[in-house]
Structure formats: C-alpha cells, structure tokens
C-alpha cells in the first residue's frame, strides 16, 4: 500500500465513524467499541502514511474544485503528519477515557457526543493534511461547527451562553479576518496552494504583506491569541474529554498549526523575517504568554486554570512561528506534540478528580494525593513536562524556542519565555503540592481512584510525556522536513 | 421654449399626480388611500394620452392618405394600464372589506394599535380566540 492509497481512507474514516456511531446509538457498548476501534484504526493509518511518506512521493487528492483553478485538495507534509499523528493517537486514548468519564458522570446525549467527536477528529485530519489554504479553511470551519454541540453539550443556560461566545469569536474571526486574508491572497497571487518559500511575488509591498499577516494571525481565532482568547475558557463548560482532546489538542493545535502553515508555506520564512508586522505579532504572543500565565494564577477553578495555561502555551507556538527562523518554527512544531501530551494528561486528571471526588476547585484539593495518588502522580508528570523540565518532552521544544528568540536577537522575548516558565511552576505545581502535602479540611476515608479506563488513558499519556524526552529525535527530524 | 400654457397638459398631470400621492401618504383611511392611488394612476394615464395627441391628427389605420397623423400606440397601451389599475383598485377594495371584517375598522391607526396589542405580551394568531383582544 502506498501513501496515496491511504489518503482517502484517512480523511473518510472519522466521518464514516460518525455515521456508524449514529446508527449504533441504541447499543452503547457497540457504539463505544466502534469509536475505539476507529480511533485505533485511524492511528494505524496515519502511522503507515508517515512511514511511507517521502518528499518525492507526496500523495495528493483533489476533493472538489468549487472555483475554477482553485482546488480543494489534500497533500500531507511533515508538519501536518505530525499533527495528524498526535491527534489520531490521542483520539482512541481520549475515547477510552471518555467511556469511563461519560458513564461515571451519567451524561445525556452520548450518541451525539461521540458522533460530533468523530466529526471533529475528521475536521482536524482535514486541517492537518490540507494541501491548500481553501481546504484548510473549509475544515477549520467544520471543526468549529462540529465542536459547537460538544461545548453546549450540557444544554444548560451557562453552556448555551458559552456556546454563543465560542461560535461568535471563532466564526467571527475566521469569517471576518481569515477569510478576508484568504480571498485577498487569491486576488493577489491567483493561488492558494501551500508552496515552500511562500506564494507572494518578491516585490510585493511590505505594508501589504504585513497587513495580510496580521489578518491571518489574528483571524486564526483558534490560536487563542489575545484579545481573541475568551472562547477557550468559555469552552471549558464542555465535558472534560472534550476539553482534553479538543481544547487542549485538536482545536487549539489546529489554530497554531494554521499559523505555522501560513508562516512557512504562504509567506515563507525569509519573507516573514523581514516583516515588521511579524515582530509586532511576536510581541503580542509574548504578551499573551505572560498575561495568560498571570490570569491562570488567579483562577481557582482547575479547568479554567488549565485553559489559561493553554492560552499561554499556544502563545509559545505563535511566537515560534513569527520569529521567522528555523529554530523557532521547529520548536513551535515540536511544541504542538509536546504540549499536547502534557496538557491532555492534566485535563484527564482534572476530569478524574471531578468524577471521583466531585471537586473542581484548586483550593478543595488539599490532601487529595492520598485519596487519588495515581491521578496526582500523572498530574505532576504532565505539569513538569509543560514547565519544560527534564526528563519530559516539553524540555526540547522550549529549548528550541528559546534558541529561536536568541537567533532572532529578541532577548526580551527570551526573558518572557523564562519568566513564563517560572509562572508555570507556580500555578501548575500548586496542585500536586496541595494534593500531597496539605492537610485535608475534612477527614476522608481511603483511596477512591478514578474509573479504570480513565486511569489507563492517563497512564498512557503520562508515559508519552516521558518517552518523548528520550525519543524526541524522530519528531525533530520530521519537523525539520518542512524547512527542506 | 414654449410658454407655460402650451404645456398645460403636463401641469394637469403633475397636479393630479401630486394630489394623489399626497392622499396616499397622508390619509389614514384605507378607502381614501385607494382613491388617492387611483388618482395617482389616472394622472399617468392622462400623461400617456396627451403624449399621443396631435392637433387635428388621426391614426393612419383605417383611412388612406393621412398626412397629419397621430400615434395610436399610447392610447392602446393605456387601455391595458387602465385595466391593470381597475384590477388593483378591485383587489384593494376587497382587501379593505376583509380588513374591516377582521379588525372592525379601516383606519390605519386603529389597525396598528390592534396589531400592537396582539404583539403584547404574546404574538397571537387570530385563529386563537382566547388571545384575541376582541
């Protein structure tokens, strides 16, 4: 089998899964087996594709051609493959976790949940493998729409209000700014294909390019760059598996992935490095990193704290993309994978604490480490990885990002990264510290761990954090591929 | 330029048109509105008819050797337009009758008040008698 033959399957499998989930909705066990099996299958397909892929034989697939000369096409490249790998690996893991969580929590409308989940993954795959900006945009919007019912899942007033914020910010920025940038690019260059080195003529004016870059980066609301970050904390009303996979991995990573793609394939790093707007955006990313970290410290609700932490970490990747040098982009690309594993672990733990101990606030967690030692251990691993300390995966990407800021001569941003890491320690490590060392307010009896499937999922992702430290080289080499 | 009295037909047209238009806008009574509308349309008919009139002219259709002829087309056209206008008035009057049946009034202000009452507090279709203000 060749990569070309795999491509149609990779993009259709999640959507077929969604249909299968709807059809088997009446039998929960069957429905969840379908979801789980599809997730494993999806990962195998993507892994095979990565193995078979080589720059010479890049597969491509034209889905439709709505506007003459402008196709809606898929064409994987290394960064996309990495994103697809991460998303498809974490899909079955999250499904496993969701089975424990959704049943343990007695949620309603589970069929709709699993179906929308599968569609979201399909949209993420489409974003990862898109061969042109139009296809990316189409799947980007699909992802917004498919995750909307997941955000409003509970159907309460609060959930519906959050859903409104979610839809308006994400759709508003993408239709108002991103689409505008896409059409403008098409009008200027007549192409939207991702082209190494960028699509613009060398003599295009700097001001014009700067404006376009602003539109692209700010229009990608999913990257949660301030001031368009409000949707992410709002989305935390969703069930935890959604927050874990979609709002720590698929959706937000789709945002920063889009920005990386635009930086590398629409503008080209050389062009980008010469733009003043890129520096401004890097500064905005730096500001986002710091402010979001500071806000995270003030949040008592665990999921809200994690959400702001995500906003801050996304800033790292945007920053890397805007630096316009190799270390920055590779660091940003790797951070997609590293942060994904770390943050999903943290969310799994937050959900487990909610299901097992019915606690949502950091201040309630005193002494919980004795009740749920495994969960707390996983949380510690995830937190250390995100802070960027060895021996966990987050180390490498932060290292490269710092390197990138030094290469670009932006020492102020280097300082921002380091200060932010300190803040990370304060607001993330507070949780296990309270859990293990603080005395509980009320006497609690014995161990009450999370449901087994959830524990299993946490174990897998926490181990992932560790393994990514020792086996980071394949990822590093994969990401380097985009610069060739 | 010809003097004002040569253009007196246009003056008549403009006067009728403005009078009709004013009545349509200013009058609250639906029947009066329709009268204004008819006046407005009639002014246009006169405009067309006077267009086709030539002093001493005759349409060169049945007779041979007409030298001073008038174009009959505007008159024919306006026949159609009159039919349209009559139909409009008929439909308008029929609607006025039905409005009178439904609201008990043909004054625009009354109708608006009744509609607003129906809107408040709830939008009530008239087939639900318990919500109806009557």
């Amino acid at each position, binding site marked *: 089998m060749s990569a070309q033959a795999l491509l149609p399957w990779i993009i259709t499998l999640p959507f077929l899964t969604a249909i299968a989930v709807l059809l088997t909705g009446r039998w929960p066990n069957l429905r969840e087996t379908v979801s789980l099996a599809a997730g494993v299958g999806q990962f195998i397909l993507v892994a095979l594709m990565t193995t078979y892929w080589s720059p010479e034989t890049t597969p491509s697939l034209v889905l439709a051609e709505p506007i003459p000369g402008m196709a809606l096409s898929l064409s994987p490249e290394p960064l996309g493959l990495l994103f697809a790998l991460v998303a498809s690996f974490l899909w079955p893991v999250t499904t496993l976790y969701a089975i424990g969580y959704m049943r343990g929590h007695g949620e309603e409308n589970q069929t709709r949940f699993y179906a929308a989940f599968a569609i979201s993954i399909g949209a993420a795959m489409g974003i990862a493998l898109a061969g042109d900006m139009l296809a990316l945009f189409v799947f980007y919007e699909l992802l917004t729409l498919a995750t909307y019912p997941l955000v409003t899942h509970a159907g309460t007033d609060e959930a519906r209000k959050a859903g409104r914020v979610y839809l308006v910010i994400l759709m508003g920025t993408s239709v108002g700014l991103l689409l505008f940038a896409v059409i403008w690019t098409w009008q200027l260059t007549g192409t939207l294909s991702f082209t190494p080195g960028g699509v613009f003529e060398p003599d295009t004016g700097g001001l014009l390019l700067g404006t376009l870059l602003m539109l692209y980066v700010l229009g990608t609301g999913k990257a949660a760059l301030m001031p368009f970050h409000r949707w992410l904390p709002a989305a935390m009303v969703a069930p935890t598996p959604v927050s874990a996979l979609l709002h720590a991995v698929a959706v937000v990573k789709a945002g920063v992935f889009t920005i990386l793609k635009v930086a590398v394939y629409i503008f080209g790093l050389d062009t980008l490095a010469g733009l003043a707007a890129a520096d401004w955006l890097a500064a905005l990313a730096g500001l986002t990193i710091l402010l979001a970290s500071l806000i995270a410290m003030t949040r008592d609700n665990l999921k809200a704290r994690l959400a702001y932490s995500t906003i801050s970490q996304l800033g790292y990747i945007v920053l890397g993309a805007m630096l316009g040098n190799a270390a920055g982009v590779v660091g940003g690309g790797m951070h997609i994978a590293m942060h994904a594993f770390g943050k999903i672990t943290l969310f799994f733990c937050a959900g487990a604490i909610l299901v097992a101990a019915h606690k949502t606030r950091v201040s309630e967690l005193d002494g919980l480490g004795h009740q749920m030692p495994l969960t707390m251990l996983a949380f510690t691993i995830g937190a250390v990885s995100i802070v960027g300390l060895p021996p966990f995966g987050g180390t490498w990407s932060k290292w490269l990002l710092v390197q990138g800021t030094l290469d670009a001569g932006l020492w102020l941003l280097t300082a921002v990264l380091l200060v932010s890491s300190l803040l990370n320690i304060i607001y993330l490590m507070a949780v296990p510290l309270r859990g293990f060392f603080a005395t509980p307010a009320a006497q609690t009896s014995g161990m009450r761990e999370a449901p087994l499937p959830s524990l299993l999922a946490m174990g897998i992702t926490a181990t992932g954090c560790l393994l990514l430290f020792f086996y980071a080289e394949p990822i590093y080499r994969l990401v380097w591929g985009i610069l060739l | 330029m010809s003097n004002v009295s040569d253009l007196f037909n246009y003056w008549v047209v403009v006067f009728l048109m403005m009078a009709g238009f004013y009545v349509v806008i200013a009058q609250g009574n639906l029947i009066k509105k329709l009268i204004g509308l008819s006046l407005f*349309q009639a002014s246009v008919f006169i*405009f067309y008819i006077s267009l086709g009139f030539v002093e001493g002219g005759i349409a060169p259709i049945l007779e041979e050797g007409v030298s001073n002829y008038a174009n009959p087309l505007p008159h024919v056209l306006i026949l159609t337009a009159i039919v349209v206008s009559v139909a*409009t008035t008929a439909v308008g009057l029929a*609607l006025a009758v039905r409005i009178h049946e439904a609201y008990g009034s043909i004054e625009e202000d009354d109708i608006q008040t009744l*509609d607003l009452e129906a809107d408040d507090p709830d939008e009530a279709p008239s087939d639900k008698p318990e919500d109806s203000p009557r």
Partner: protein
Amino acid sequence: MNLGDHLPLLAIILPLLAAPVCVLIGRAGAAWLIALTSSVLSLAAAAALLQGVVQERTVSYQLGGWAPPWGIELRVDLLGAYVLLIVCAMAAMVMAYARRSVIREVEAALIPAFYAALLLVFAGLAGITVTGDAFNLFVFLEISSLASYALISMGRDRRAVSAAFQYLVMGSIGATFILIGIGFLYLMTGTLNMQDLAQRLPAVSDTRTVRAGFAFLTVGIGLKLALFPLHLWLPNAYAYAPSVVSALLAATATKVAVYALLRFIIDVFGADFSLGDMPLNLLLILLGSLGILVASLVAVYQDNVKRMLAYSSVAQVGYMVLGIGLASAAGVSAAILHLFNHALMKGALFLALGAVAYQMGRVRLKDFAGLGRSMPWTMAAIVVSGLSLIGVPGTAGFISKWYLVLAILEQDLWPLAMLVLVGSILALLYMGRLVEAAYFQHPEKNTVVPREAPLSLLLPLWVLATANLYFGLFTDLNVGIAQQASSQLLEGRP
C-alpha cells in the same frame, strides 16, 4: 411548426392558461395537480431554452407574428434564460411541496383560487424574464403583483390582510413609477422595444426627460426589489403570508426584480450611462451596504422566525445590489450568481419553516425549542441552508460571497469587503439563535411534541437543501453561466 421554436412562449403560457382551469375545476386536488404539471412542464421548457441559449445565443420570438418593434417581442438572452430557469425551478419545487401545506393553511373553499393565483404569480415573473418589450414587462409585473397581493391576504393571521394592503399600496406606487419611466422613454425614442430603446437612447441620453425617466424607473424597481430603505412592505408580507407563498416570493420575486434592474440599467440605458454618468453606482453601493448592515441587525432581534428570514432577504438583496453597483464584470456576475444561490437557500429555509408551521401552527423562536429532536430532518435542512446563508465554505453561499468579495477587492474597496463579511457574522448570529433554540433548549412544559413533517414536504425541501451543498462544491453550471451572462450584458448584445 416545431415545438422547440415556441419555448419562450411555452414557459409563460402554460401557467397562464392553467390558472383559469384551476378555478373552473374548483377542486383542490385537481387544481394542485394542474398547477404542478404546468410548472414542471414550464421548467422543462426553461431548461431546454437555457440549453438552446447557451449553444446558439439569444432567442427572439415574435408574439402573434408581428415583427418588432411594432409587435411584442419575446427575447431571451443568457441572463433571461438563467433567471427564468431559477423561477421555474423554484415554482416547480414549491408546487410539489404545496399540497399538504396548503390544505392546512388555506380555507378549503379558496384552494383552487389559491393555486390559480400562485400560477399567475409564477407566469408574471416568468414573463418578465422573457419579454423584450418594456411595456409588456410592466404588464407582467402587475400580473404577478396583483396575484401576490391576493395570495398574501390568504394567510391565517389577520395581519396578513393588512400586510397585503400595505404591499398593494407600495407595490402600485412602484409599478406606476415604472410606468411613468417607460412613458418618458417612449416620449423621447418612440419605441418600447428594449433593443430599439438601447440603440436610440444614447443619442438623447443627456436630456432631462431621459434622466427623469431613469430616476422613475430605478425608484419603481427599487420598491419591487425591496431595496433598503424601500423595503418596508416586505417583512410583514413574507411573515404573514401562507408558507408556500412566502417560499415562492422569497425565492423568486425579488430575484426577478433584480433581473429587471439589471435589464434596464445595464441593457437598456447602458452601464456607461447608469453607472457612470448617473451616480447610480454610488447609490447602489451605499444602499446595498446599508441594507446588509441594518436589515441583518434587525433580523437578529426578531422573534418571529419568518420575519427574521424576511429581513435577511432584504439584507441579501443588499449583496446583489452591491455587486451591481461595482459596475464591473466581476461585480455583476457575483450579483447574478448570488441571485441563483440565494433562491436556493431562501427557498429551502422558507419551505422548512412551512414544515414547522405545518406541525406547530406557528413559527416563533420559542416554538423551535426541542425541534432538533422531534423534527430532525426539517431542522437538519434548516441547518444546511442556514450555513449556506452564512456563507460557510462547502455551501453555495460561500461561493457567492467569495466572488463578491473578490469583485470588491478588485477595486480596492476593502472596507466594503469587511462589511460583506460582517454581514456573514450577523447572519451567523440570527441563524445561531434558531439552531440553539432547536437543539439545546427544552420545549416548554405541556406543549405537544410534534412529529416529523410528512414526506411530501420533506422531499422538495431536501432537494433544495442538497442543491445548496452541491452548488457549493460543483459550480460549473451557475458560475459559468453567471459570468457569461454578465459579460454578455456588459459588452453589448451579440
């Protein structure tokens, strides 16, 4: 005699003849069958006609054998055939849908007359698209308008009657304005044939008479078009008319008015005169933009869903007018394209509302609570066509927005491009309210949970909803013809 030669006549004469037959037969079922058959046959004629026009250029047909400019000429160019196809296709869909919805919404004794009026509206609108004679256009316009006043007044709510009266007054003023305009043109040129008008007007175009005629015509058509701020008649008329009528009018009536506008200002007067010498381009851009903004904003605050969509129609007319105001081939073709796509989405949305009204009796926002569960197919169709209305990629609406923004950017008017996209966001807001109510709100207690609408309603609805998706991905048909029609229109007739 070859039937193929009479296609232009056939498309309008079938419904025109079928209308009195409906009244004479006087039975609801038979009347429906006749209406359906004649509109399907008209659709076939329109499709054949379009094919002929694409291959062999403009078709001219002399009514009664009188040669133009004395006789009335039916003249179908690409644009005419294209709009005719839209009108016939929407009419056929609406007729197929009508039977059960009409039984529920219209008094039984009135049903045959209802179908007759529906056919007259259809015939009038179709007639406008094929005629080559300015006065004939006015007559067809009045045929369709008079019938639509009657139809709107057949709604169950008594406000339908007052809305119909309001529409009658404003519509008649608009029509009379058009008549005055045509009279002025005739005064200066001595002809009513549009071809002749177009040839003779340039010689006299700087007279005050022609300019006054131009102004009267534009305002008159603007009224029919529901061009902001002349749109006041539209929201109530659409909101209280029977569902079938709203669907037919929303999908076709404003489209045909846009066609009439294009025909007069570009074909008859010439783009150089209307959009160059006269400042109509600025006016259209200004009013179009205001329409998009204001009407969309008003739509967000409507509680009656039909009124909401009616305001949305006013906004969508703004997009088309904006495209025409750009006065470029790209702008006009974007307008023509949106004409087609908007017919698809509004047709589908109003048919879906008809299905909801069929089950619920009314269509206030709160009646939609929980419908996502109880009427899944209807709501799914609303979501699909709503996405198209917003302009989400993969739907027809995206394609029209794309071309419109492209045409705007061609002239570096980027604030306008932003405005178009803001319009999309507003559409997201009002459609979002609907979707939220349907899927995430629980119905009030003691309300009867409705069942899904019957298949005869769902089928035409889904044909249109699917068309929204199809034309979002495969656009050879509509984009290709829109671009050809626009260049044919702007570069003079072949």
